């Protein structure tokens, strides 16, 4: 065994790992694809600005005590006629700075997106592995449930779960719970893709010799599934996860747009679009436009990244 306390060895290994990553096929394909690079840059920029929102945002839109209603409907970069304040992207109907609200809304959208995909991944991978590896009745039951769920539009499933969850949470916790319920609703409506792909890949891997060898030396089924099969089925999962992230962000926006998602006092991008939509005819376009553009940029770049990843990981397209 290698001596892990040896720093030089570790540093050397880290460097070589970085170099290896840089030289890998994936990185090479990334460097060769301008679309991937641009969408990667946009995604990174959006994620970073969401993470550092409290540092970047000029106002705290979630603290109602700092709002001044008289600042409402200030056009972008113009002075408000009552207060004289000016805001880069204007303000909404409550006098909230649109730029700050987008940054904080982006946080909610991304958080819900990542968490929902993580949930869907955990459920989907577990069920997919179990179905593929064990087979038989277990497989039939899991995959039929998945088929049934696929016949409903996922947004409908999400709304159903949201409705039930909202119904059973006590009213005093409803607003705090809204985000978690949203994650649960989107995550539970989205696991089927993962389960199907993992099951398919597991079926292929299961018959390979290394699995038979692991079985021969007496490893437990759980260990075989997690230590041997899982690492080999992860690359398609990664692709689906990326595309699912874009879909989850859009699902969150749709739910919030329909008024069943994030509360208006802590708006996500979808809530902002819902608020802005009411002022579409009256000329206050910026309330809708900027959040919508942010959502577009985010969903599009994540989606393009997913597309690139799918192509890059597909040996037939190389």
């Amino acid at each position, binding site marked *: 065994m290698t001596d892990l306390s040896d720093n030089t060895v570790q540093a050397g290994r880290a460097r070589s790992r970085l170099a290896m990553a840089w030289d890998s096929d994936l990185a090479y394909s990334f460097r060769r694809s301008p679309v991937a690079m641009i969408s990667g840059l946009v995604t990174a920029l959006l994620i970073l600005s969401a993470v550092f929102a409290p540092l970047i945002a000029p106002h705290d839109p979630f603290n*109602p005590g700092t709002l001044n*209603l008289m600042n409402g409907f200030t056009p972008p970069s113009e002075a408000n006629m009552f207060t004289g304040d000016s805001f880069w992207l204007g303000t909404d109907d409550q006098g909230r700075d649109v730029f700050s609200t987008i940054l904080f809304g982006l946080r909610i959208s991304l958080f819900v997106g990542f968490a929902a995909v993580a949930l869907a991944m955990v459920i989907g991978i577990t069920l997919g592995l179990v179905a593929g590896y064990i087979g038989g009745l277990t497989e039939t039951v899991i995959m039929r449930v998945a088929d049934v769920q696929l016949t409903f539009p996922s947004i409908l499933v999400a709304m159903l779960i949201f409705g039930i969850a909202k119904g059973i949470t006590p009213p*005093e916790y409803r607003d705090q719970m809204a985000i978690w319920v949203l994650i649960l609703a989107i995550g539970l409506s989205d696991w089927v893709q993962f389960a199907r792909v993992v099951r398919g890949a597991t079926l292929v891997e299961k018959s390979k010799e290394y699995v038979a060898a692991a079985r021969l030396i007496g490893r437990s089924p759980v260990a075989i599934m997690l230590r041997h099969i899982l690492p080999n089925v992860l690359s398609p999962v990664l692709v689906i996860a990326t595309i699912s992230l874009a879909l989850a962000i859009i699902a969150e926006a749709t739910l919030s747009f329909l008024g069943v998602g994030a509360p*208006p*006092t802590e708006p996500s991008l979808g809530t902002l679009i819902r608020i802005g*939509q009411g002022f579409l*005819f009256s000329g206050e376009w910026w309330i809708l436009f900027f959040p919508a553009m942010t959502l577009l940029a985010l969903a599009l770049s994540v989606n393009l990244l997913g597309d690139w990843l799918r192509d890059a990981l597909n040996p037939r397209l190389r």
Partner: protein
Amino acid sequence: MTMRLATFGAALLATTALTVSAASAETLRWARASEALTLDPHSQNEGPTTTLMHQIYEPLIVRNMEGGLEPGLATSWEPSSSDPNVWVFQIREGVTFHEGQAFDAEDVVFSLNRALSEASDFKELLTGVTEVRAAGDFTVEVVTDGPNPLLPNNLTNIMMLDAGWAAENNTEEVQDYAAGEDTYAARNANGTGPFVLQSRTADVETVMTQNPDYWGIGEFPMDITEIIFTPIQNPATRVAALLTGEVDFIQDVPVQDLERVDGADGIGLATAPQNRVIFFGMNVGDEDLTLDNVEGANPFADVRVRRAMDIAINREAIQQVVMRGQSAPAGVISPPPVNGWTPELDEYPAYDVEAARALMEEAGYGDGFSVQLDCPNDRYINDEAICQAVVGMLAQIGIDVNLSALPRAQHFPLISNFETDFYMLGWGVPTYDAEYIFNFLYHTQTENRGSWNGTRYSNPEMDEMIASLTSNTDLDARNGTIAALFEMAEEEVIYLPVHNQVLNWGISDAWSTVVDADDQVKFKYFELN
């Protein structure tokens, strides 16, 4: 061959032209933000519900669109010459219900008694009524526990049902809406009114056609042959429907779209101050609140906290920004046309955050507290936006408000069931008299009064004064009591008035109407241009 084709074409053209004129000229497609909560006319005393009911059912006395009293199903009414405690109503003869039953005094007796029953939401209008009896087929006597000069004003929203129909369909009891009850009368309607219910899918579409046997044909314009009612909650969708000609009439043009609707071709904007005040109510009665963070005490029970909240609300900012000038800031829970209202009462306190913070400090809530605000999102003009603005204003004096906005079908039961500690409500006064306000909103919640008093406020002295209003025939003394009541109410601040609404109706140029200050459209008065 050509001949035949030409004839066929002409015939086709003629039929198309016919159907077009029949379908588009006399059908009025009506939209508003809110749907009627029920079809039971005595279950919910609430604007949109009563408005729909007025097309299908009728009261004894009708308030016309200008606000004047007109004979409805009663042709005349006067106090009895022998007993000052009795009102005598002559009932209109020859009227039939939509399903064919004849209308007579028995139906009036049944309907008024139904409206007096405990589940009825209209019983506050009939407090003091001890007996309703038929004196002949077309005469009804209403007995009160004392002379009640204002009784006819209270009857304008109390609809008449057929006693036989109700018995046959086992729907004699009033639907208990707040308890979630469903009844035959809540889903079916059989009135005497100008329009007959044809089909209804709640929240989607309600179709009514002209009643061919209506007694008022010839008396009223009755230009509309069919009404298609669609609730459209989303303001942008609603205004788009009007602008594209998908609907002919919307009752609530969003304030941000007034200019656009006014400037649109073929569409007119009709504006009038509305008989409706918007305010917040607080649970002042309970020992402790459920949805707050203060243990063992109720911050709203302290009048200093209520006063602090009153002066922390910037009514002018709400008027200018949220309402875009389309409201009149208010200092009292009474719209101006109501008897008892004075400009002095309506003076609202100056916005003063510093003074409000000092009051909070004095009351021992210098660090504030948190509480939930329940707000409707489909009932009043910009209701949710007003609530959100108030959340911001209260945050400045340390009150951390958690806003819960719900459709009004879920919001209103919270108030009547005492399930909210802090809520928004709007109040219009169809009787144009302050008694209606005190009976519903200030009186202790009892069997026949206080059903919309969600504040748990209970003041025996006030209750006694309120009860005396019903039978006080000395109008000067009565007005004195009303003034004293308002003074007590101002002192107690159990409600935080925000403003009086301004009505903005958007209507296709094909139709003309006057704007009803009660926002109670009565389509029989609509005229085709």
